[in-house]
């Protein structure tokens, strides 16, 4: 395969050792920035943003629900893309990323569903309705769980990575369904707050803390991903001499 057009860092990322050292440098900064952003966003959203004129204060759940829903989908796409890179270029680090993303993504999907249900009760009068948006988000959770189960069911690491990559790529079809579900079908669910082409419909005092939370969630779960990935790298590269040196074991 012609790979000349790919930048050099792409191949550096392919080295587990380089990746371990690079994430080690990034981690403290990501952790610091993400925890600051999430605390600022939470306090801003809970105490300072104005109450919604229709929903009152229950709307403050948005500052948790929307970032969680966005992240659950972004991490799914990351898992599928990493899986595809692993399939095409036989890149071990990509397989490790795909494996490490899955449990994090599943837990965020759970958070999005639970906060949605709790928000639905005072707003719609029901914890759950079987409409397209809610159902497709539930399917997203099941896809994550399927990927995790499939990965742990196959003993060979490379075969497990191939099988889960194919499953996550097939499941990718669910992502546009989630996105457009509020436009294609009748629903109680409100449309997206942030769109690339339009200004948000809510005032700045309301969407600014939300934006802070979304960026905070990206960096926070990026931190969680790096932590998991580093464990995965160490375990799989245990035969490499650099791991021996790192752990202070003489060969």
């Amino acid at each position, binding site marked *: 395969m012609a790979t000349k057009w790919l930048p050099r860092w792409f191949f550096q990322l392919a080295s587990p050792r380089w990746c371990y050292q690079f994430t080690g440098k990034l981690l403290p900064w990501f952790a610091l920035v993400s925890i600051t952003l999430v605390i600022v966003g939470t306090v801003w959203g*809970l*105490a300072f943003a104005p109450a919604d004129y229709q929903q009152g204060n229950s709307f403050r759940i948005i500052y948790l629900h929307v970032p969680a829903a966005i992240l659950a989908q972004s991490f799914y796409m990351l898992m599928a893309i990493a899986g595809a890179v692993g399939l095409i270029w036989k890149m071990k680090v990509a397989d490790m990323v795909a494996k490490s993303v899955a449990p994090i993504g599943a837990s965020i999907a759970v*958070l999005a569903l639970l906060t949605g249900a709790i*928000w639905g009760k005072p707003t719609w009068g029901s914890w759950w309705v079987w409409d397209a948006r809610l159902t497709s988000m539930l399917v997203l959770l099941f896809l994550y769980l399927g990927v995790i189960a499939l990965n742990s069911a196959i003993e060979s690491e490379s075969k497990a990575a191939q099988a889960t990559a194919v499953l996550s790529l097939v499941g990718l079809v669910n992502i546009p369904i989630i996105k457009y579900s509020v436009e294609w079908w009748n629903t109680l669910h409100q449309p997206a707050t942030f769109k690339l082409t339009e200004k948000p419909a809510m005032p700045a005092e309301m969407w600014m803390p939300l934006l802070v939370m979304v960026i905070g969630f990206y960096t*926070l779960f990026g931190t*969680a991903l790096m*932590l998991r990935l580093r*464990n995965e790298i160490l375990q799989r590269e245990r035969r490499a001499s650099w791991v021996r040196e790192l752990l202070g074991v003489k060969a």
Partner: protein
Amino acid sequence: MAFETFAEFLDMGGHGLYVWLCYALGLVIISANLVLPIQQSKKVQRDLRRRLRREGESA
């Protein structure tokens, strides 16, 4: 501030239970995502060290 008193802040206009339940869940899920891999990392390094030493001795 959107609230006059701390009691009003906790009450969230009568929706306090819903709002605080969500944020409690958020705290649990975020903490788990950070604490579990850190604990795992200690375990992985300890186990690997033991295993590599043992392999080094038997070789």
